[in-house]
């Protein structure tokens, strides 16, 4: 407990130290706003222009969450399908790897071609970016379920569905949540890419416009917003993960609750 507190204090100190160093370095070397604004300038910009930034932040968050939600639905469904048997897993894996290695930026133009600019391509880009980590992890979790655990169920003459719900899915939860943390940050990447390329709303678009008018503090304010949203969602899913899959870490706090 004590060492944990120490670690937290050290982490916080490092973050604060980073910004202080940034501020001081800019002052000491006389770096211009247009190259690298100081943290204080960025924070000032953030508050001063909040009414203009806010709708974009909401738009980005909305797009990301919709894409992420759809990614979970499709990812779990496809993952369950692929992971349902060792054979399906081995057969489908090469194709999945092929798809997942395609740089997703490359598909945005295609999506714009199909759906036009706006929210839809952004949602789909977020979806495709977070789909693969979820699908691959769910499939891996299911496909690597210990045969002994399935035998326990089969000895009771349990149906395939019973086995899936009582062994397969609970066993896969740690894999699933590990993938959610990756996927939610990936969904942000997808959203921002699509907004940058083909949208007139969202933080990506805001940063695009700000940089073309050399409003560098606003660009950085956009970055800060993205970082805050990303970290926020990451923390939320980490928290749920610990609550749900504490057994996988032999977590005694989990056992108490």
């Amino acid at each position, binding site marked *: 407990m004590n060492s944990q507190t120490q670690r937290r204090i050290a982490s916080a100190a490092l973050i604060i130290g980073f910004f202080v160093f940034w501020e001081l370095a800019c002052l000491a070397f006389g770096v211009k706003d247009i190259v690298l604004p100081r943290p204080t300038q960025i924070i000032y910009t953030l508050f001063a222009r909040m009414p203009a930034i806010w709708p974009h932040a909401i738009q980005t968050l909305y797009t990301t969450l919709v894409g992420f939600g759809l990614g979970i639905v499709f990812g779990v469904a496809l993952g369950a399908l692929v992971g349902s048997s060792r054979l399906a897993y081995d057969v489908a894996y090469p194709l999945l790897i092929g798809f997942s290695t395609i740089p997703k930026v490359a598909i945005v133009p295609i999506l714009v071609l199909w759906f036009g600019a706006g929210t839809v391509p952004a949602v789909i880009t977020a979806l495709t970016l977070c789909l693969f980590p979820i699908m691959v992890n769910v499939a891996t979790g299911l496909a690597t379920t210990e045969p002994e655990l399935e035998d326990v169920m089969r000895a*009771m003459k349990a149906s395939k569905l019973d086995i899936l719900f009582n062994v397969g899915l609970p066993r896969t939860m740690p894999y699933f949540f590990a993938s959610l943390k990756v996927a939610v940050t990936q969904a942000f990447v997808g959203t921002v890419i699509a907004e940058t390329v083909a949208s007139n709303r969202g933080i990506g678009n805001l940063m695009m416009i700000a940089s073309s008018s050399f409003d560098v503090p606003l660009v950085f304010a956009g970055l800060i917003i993205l970082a805050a949203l990303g970290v926020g969602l990451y923390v939320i899913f980490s928290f749920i993960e610990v609550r749900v899959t504490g057994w996988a870490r*032999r977590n005694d706090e989990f*056992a108490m609750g």
Partner: protein
Amino acid sequence: MNAVAIAHPPPDAAPEGLTRSDAFVELENVTHSYGRGERQVHALTETNLRIEKGDFIALVGPSGCGKSTILKLVTGLINASSGYVFVAGRQVGAEPVRVGMAFQNPTLLPWLTLLDNVMLPLKIVPPYRQEYRAKRKSEFRDRIEALLAQVGLAGFSNKYPWQLSGGMMQRASLCRALIHEPQLLMLDEPFGALDQFTREELWGVMQDLWMTRKPTVLLVTHDLKEAAFLANRICVMQARPGRIIDDSAVPFPRPRTIAMSYDPNFTALTHSLREMIVHARPIKDVSQ
């Protein structure tokens, strides 16, 4: 309740899977091999075995003689390469018999508490399955607590498996095999990983359970003393090819005690079993 399984009149329109067998469990010319081609391993060859209802059989023999294979065949976890396995007069898989199985490893589900682990069969196996749905969980909970207490796990029902010692997990695993009052109980070296004292204690628990509920038990073990202590009949198996080479009754009266295991007759029995198993370990392959 015990008679339910075989009291069913044999259905008239006999589909495949019916038999003339009147024993509770019967293996008829069963051969089983793992793998294919050159790497094929004959686990079991031309094996015949009859088990009457309510009997307690121990299978002993050297490693790789197909003891666990017999258990898996009778549970329906694997299908015989050739020959027939009948349970309650039906080909295995179709029989309306509640089966309980305790594995060599505890195989408890790590995301469930002990209570929920032991609850699992009640959630899956009919007729408890329907009762479970009909919200009789609290009644089940009391039953589980009572059974856990019987094996010395009182007060541990809300612990997770990984918070317990190996012996405690093994006990819980035994409870899971017993909670739905199986008519057929399969034990695959369930006491193997335990220390001597815990093992002897659980032999006593097992004997009590068998004497009160009279399930049909098939126990696989390496421990000859355990076989002689618990079983009514001991089948000795040989390896490569796996087959039963001796099948004899255990004469000692019940309830048996640990003190009895130091009796000369008891020692003589385990000794003769030992001799048979030592000689049943030929290196040469006599299958063809």
